[in-house]
Every structure is written in C-alpha cells, then in structure tokens.
C-alpha cells in the first residue's frame, strides 16, 4: 500500500505531461479507494452476483446486461437497494462518489 502511495503522484504527473491526450474518467477516485471498491465488488457483491459478475442469486452485472440503465440509476440501486429483494442498500458503507465509480465501471466492464 505504501508503495502505491509513493508511486501514484509520479503516475499522475506523467499523465499530466501528456496533456490533452489524457482522458480523465468521469468519476475518478484515488487509486487506493478504487482498489478497495474493486475488491468489494468482486468478492462481496460477487457472493450474489458471481465473482465474474455473470449473475447468481442476483442478476448479471455485465455491460450488456446493464446497457439499458444509466449510471445514475445503477448508483441509486447500489445506494438504496431494491425493496423486497435481497439487494441491500449500501448507503452508509459507500458514498455517492463510490457508487458512481462502481456504476460507471460496471457499464464499461469491471476491472479485475
């Protein structure tokens, strides 16, 4: 973890040098939080949705299965849950920024 913290500013500054060619993701978090969330989604969401996100007791979370949903809707399901179904509200565990980052990345194809 400390290694990551040291190397991060270097990466950012080199990215900044690239200038206009660098695409900043819509909902960026710091990389430590991103790896926490990646782990959470793969391991904990994965207990219902499958570690490969192809679905289980919960539905699949692959880009093609989420194509009809906006990121905002996905984020609101993450935060608010689905009443009457096992999908719990993650509000309290996750911030809106966390949920938007997860939603954006689910739609793009979630990192490993």
């Amino acid at each position, binding site marked *: 973890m400390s290694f990551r913290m040291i190397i991060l500013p270097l990466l950012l500054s080199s990215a900044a040098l690239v200038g206009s060619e660098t695409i900043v993701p819509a909902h960026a978090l710091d990389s430590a939080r991103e790896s926490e969330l990646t782990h959470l989604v793969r391991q*904990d969401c994965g207990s219902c949705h*499958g*570690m490969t996100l192809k*679905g289980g007791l919960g539905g699949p979370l692959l880009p093609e299965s989420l194509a009809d949903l906006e990121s905002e809707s996905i984020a609101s399901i993450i935060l608010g*849950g689905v009443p009457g179904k*096992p999908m719990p509200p993650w509000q309290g565990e996750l911030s809106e920024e966390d949920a938007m980052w997860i939603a954006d990345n689910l739609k793009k194809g979630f990192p490993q």
Partner: protein
Amino acid sequence: MKRREFLKVSGLGAAAAAASASPVRACATTLRGTGDLAIIIERATGSILIADTTAREIVRRVEGLGDLSHASAVYSRDARYAYIFGRDGGLTKLDILEGAIVKRIMQAGNAIGGAISDDGQLVAVSNYKPGGIRVFDASTLEPVADIPATYGADKRSKTVGLVDAPGRRFIYTLYDAGEIWIADFSGNGEPRIARHKGIGELPYDALITGDGRHYIAGLFGEDGLTHIDLWQDKAEPRRILSGYGRGEKKLPVYKMPHLEGWALGGGRFLLPAVGRHELLVVDAASFEEVGRIPVHGQPIFAVARPDGRYAWVNFAHPRNDTIQVVDIPSLTVVHEFKPGPAALHMEFAPRGHEVWLSVRDANEVHVYDTHSYEKRAVLPAQKPSGIFMTARAHRIGL
C-alpha cells in the same frame, strides 16, 4: 519395489499416469487412507487445495476448475473422489489421492451447489441458469435426468438448498416460485417428483437435519422459515417461527446467511437471523423459538462443534473479521477472536478437536484447537473459501 509396480499397473491406470508430479499418497510406495484429507476451495483462481488435516499441511494444488465463487463439494462413498460444483456450471470429479481431475463437464450456465444420493450413485446439481436440477451418474458423469424448475405459464425458477435425503431422494427449493420439490429416484425409470407450492416468499437456502428427517427453508421475503417433516407419510410444509421479528426494522443484509451446518446441540437449534445481529434459538422438537442470542454482527454460519456443546459463528461484511463461540447450554458467547479479514468458512474435524477456518482476505487457512482456542497452524492459500473434509462422505445432507 514389487508393490510400486502393482500400484502403477492395477490400481490407478491412466489416471496415475496422467497425474503429473507427486500424488497425494506422497510416494508410490506409501498406502494411505483418505479419512483425514480435506479440500479447500480457492475461489478466485479456480483451484483446489488438498490438505492433510493430521499433518496440517497442504499436500497439493489442483488447477483448472473454472469459476469457484460460491463453490461447494460432496464426496463419493469411499471418500476418494470429490465432486466440486462451480458457479459457472462446472462439475468436476477429483481424485484426491492422485490429486488429479478425473472428469470435468460444463452442465449448465450458472449453478449453486449439489448433492450425492445416499447410495453414492447419483450426483445432482442445483442450477440458476437454466433453472432446475440436473442429475448425473456419479462414476461417469453421464446425464441421468434433467428436471426443469418450471412454474407459472413458462417460467423457470432458480433452485437453492439442494440436499440428499434417505431413499435415493433429492430435495430442493425454487427461489423464484416459492416451492419445494422432492425428486425420488428410488424406483426404476423416471424420478417421481412431489411439488409443494406456496411455501413462502423468496426462499434463499435450505438444510436437512443430520438424521434426514427435517428439511427447512429460510425465507428472505417474509419473516420465518418453512419446515417439512419427512417422516410423515404425507409430508406437508408448514411455517415455523413466522412471528419472528415482525414489525422490527431489519438491517441491510450484505451477505445472505447459510443454513447448511446450522447448529444443533442439547435439543436446540441455533440459526442465523436474517438482517439482525442475533442467533435464533429454536426448540428441536417443537420448532418454537425459545430465545435469541445477541452476537457481534449479522451471522453467516452458526456451526456446532460435532459434540454439540458449542457453536462457532462468523459474520457478514463489514464485521467478517471476527469469530464468536457460543456455549449452547447457557446460550452465551464465551469466546471471541479476530482471525483476520473475511473469516468466512469453518469446518470442524469430524470429532471436533480442531476447526479449520478460511481467512479469505489474508490468503490464509487457520487451524485452531477448539478446547484451548490455540492457533495450531497457518497455511497459505489464495482467497480460500469453503473447506470440505472427507467425513462428509458419510453424513446425510452434506
């Protein structure tokens, strides 16, 4: 030396020849039983560890088993072969002595565990997609029966809580349909299916008691559980504990509790409450609630030590770093410790002297003395989850 040749030629044939590296029996000249072996699921890497629980050592890693998130296993009657049920619909027959895959098939798109019949001849798999169960010949993995979980006009339900029951039967629950089906393979030809409808909203898991008498399904969509007494000539489901928690606000459920291995001791069951930091205490004869035990978090597994004196309990995210031990006679928590992040699976040695524990996010399996609580071993494993000892071969419902 002659013995070595004998083993090579007669016993193990092609499988032995195919098995690379060293077989689990350590070297070809050593015979060994399987009674103290176990397998450990490495969920993220699609691999299995074979462990010697006497030496407390990992003996072998077997790779290539696909998506093993939420994987489980059953054993052949001789406790030599493990049948491993993967999330991706993979069914793998593993020779744990040779440390080699005997056969592997993809039997469905999405699956959630399985069972083996009491005579050891049939392996059944519970499928989410396509919803239903599929049954295979345990020796060849050739298909024997395909039973779609149909309901309504043309819908198919995910199936959960598949167990074996005495008399060459499999019992399972339809999550979407709210039904329990009993598939009876005791006759010749097609299985007889008994369908029990209206058993409750969103049954998420089920168990059968170790005597094969009681099948109990947990309900997510309503308070309570559904019980079938299989000793009755005309087995009918009935609700139990249906008043439980009515009107109280539940906490968000970050991980569904598991019912398999719920704790029976001293004539009482302990089972995880859904969405509460409590265990329910249920009288094993009347199925009435007789108490609740406040615990550290939302319980996932409450497993009795095999003598029934204590139950060991683990918890859902975000409190999954902790284990509590409940004294069943007094219904009090008598020990608590933090083995590490995501301590999600426990397996007791058959007579309970030790417990093996997967600490997923530490990439470790721990072995504890269940009397002194002393940590006896720490074994490296990659994202370990379920641990399955071969003693399961000889128990109903496991």
